[in-house]
């Protein structure tokens, strides 16, 4: 399935972050999203996932459209953001299990086997019964990334996935991305650090910078004030 982004525009805090953003990513493609800090890479990924309100445009993946059936689109997305969603009070294994269950996996021996396999793959087996509060930043990130394998979804949105990862984990992430695109998945990663796998294409946020961002119209300013208050 292809990911089609049409004329997407997004306003955050009264500022238009990006506009007239259109591109198509084909199945089996790994795309790197580049741009300076604050250029809207994270917002674009969150907008595609339907996690921030969009001002204009649409996102389509297969038959699902963000405007018409957001939930169908969202069920195909695996999003790994700056925050890993790790609950410090639960153990590493419990964290992973609760994500899998919330994402719709049935409890039972099969799930436990999948958990074993995933923990092993991300070198977290030794930690599995430790509270996640004891994890280092890199271990938390690995735990966050392990969701990609545990409940496979075709579209991966990775926001700075390499932050806090060591070389070995970076290699493993590269292998993971490569395996995913070979099975026809779509991967977008916003990143500054080079990944261990070569991307099929590179998208620059500069192409989507809004024109005349400084002269935002008064309605947007109003909306912005409300958002700041909220």
């Amino acid at each position, binding site marked *: 399935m292809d990911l089609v982004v049409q004329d997407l525009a997004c306003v*955050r805090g009264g500022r238009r972050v990006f506009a007239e953003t259109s591109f198509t990513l084909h199945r089996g493609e790994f795309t790197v999203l580049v741009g300076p800090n604050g250029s809207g890479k994270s917002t674009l990924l969150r907008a595609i*996932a*339907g*996690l*921030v*309100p969009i001002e204009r445009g649409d996102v389509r993946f297969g038959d699902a459209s963000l405007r018409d059936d957001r*939930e169908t689109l*969202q*069920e195909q*997305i*695996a*999003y790994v*953001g*700056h*925050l*890993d*969603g*790790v*609950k410090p*009070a*639960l153990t590493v294994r*419990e964290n992973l299990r*609760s*994500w899998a*269950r*919330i*994402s*719709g996996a049935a*409890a039972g021996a099969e799930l436990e086997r999948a958990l074993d396999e995933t923990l092993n793959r991300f070198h977290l087996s030794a930690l599995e019964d430790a509270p996640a509060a004891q994890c280092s930043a890199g271990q938390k990130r690995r735990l*966050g990334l392990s*969701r990609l394998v545990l409940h496979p979804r075709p579209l991966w949105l990775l926001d700075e996935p390499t932050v806090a990862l060591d070389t070995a984990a970076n290699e493993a992430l590269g292998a993971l991305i490569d395996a995913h695109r070979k099975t026809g998945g779509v991967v977008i990663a916003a990143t500054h650090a080079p990944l261990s796998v070569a991307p099929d294409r590179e998208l620059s946020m500069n192409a989507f910078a809004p024109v005349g961002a400084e002269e935002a119209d008064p309605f947007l300013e109003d909306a912005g004030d409300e958002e700041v208050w*909220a």
Partner: protein
Amino acid sequence: MYALFVRDLQLALRLGGGLWNGLSFFVIAVALLAFGVGPDAALLAQIAPGGIWVFALLACLLSLDRLFQADAEDGALDLIVLSPTPLEGAVLAKAAAHWLTSGLPLTLFAPAAGVMLSLPPQSIGPLVATLAIGTPALSLIGAVGAALTLGVRRGGLLLSVLVLPLYVPSLIFGALAVRSSAVGLEIQASLLMLGATTLGCLALAPFAAAAALRINQS
């Protein structure tokens, strides 16, 4: 949905999960009221229904501001939104877990609170019944307030201002039933109204809270 419910219960039962906050507040507030009013048993018994109910509202409120905030701060809310569970179902699961760890302990402790405030014995049963029927509405309405104030720094006060007025129907019918039972009046009508309030909240709150969460996503 069930998975989210189980996870929230697990988190509440762990150290620092806040299970005991609401209950300890409730116990202390009831004791303080008894100390403050003094040894006049008749006066205490008169104040008891309203007092216990007000403390129950406030105790429920204590843990509400973390209901969605905790998940929003560590990124878990994004995962919940992207999960196959409809957001309305997720709200219901979280509200149910919140009730089990806030309203239910209060309900179970209520007989002791009644004795501390020299509530007549025939009112203890109705007190437990009103709390059992009425407190789920507090968690449900609270979920709407928590969703609306998501992302507000130190939103606790705003949450109280939003939510407490909406607790008034439950408070009125809950306290009224207990007061009526003390003087031997019929309480069925009050219980039915209390139940209707809870059922109304059950029907509406998940949709309202889910809509508020969608607006507040950032």
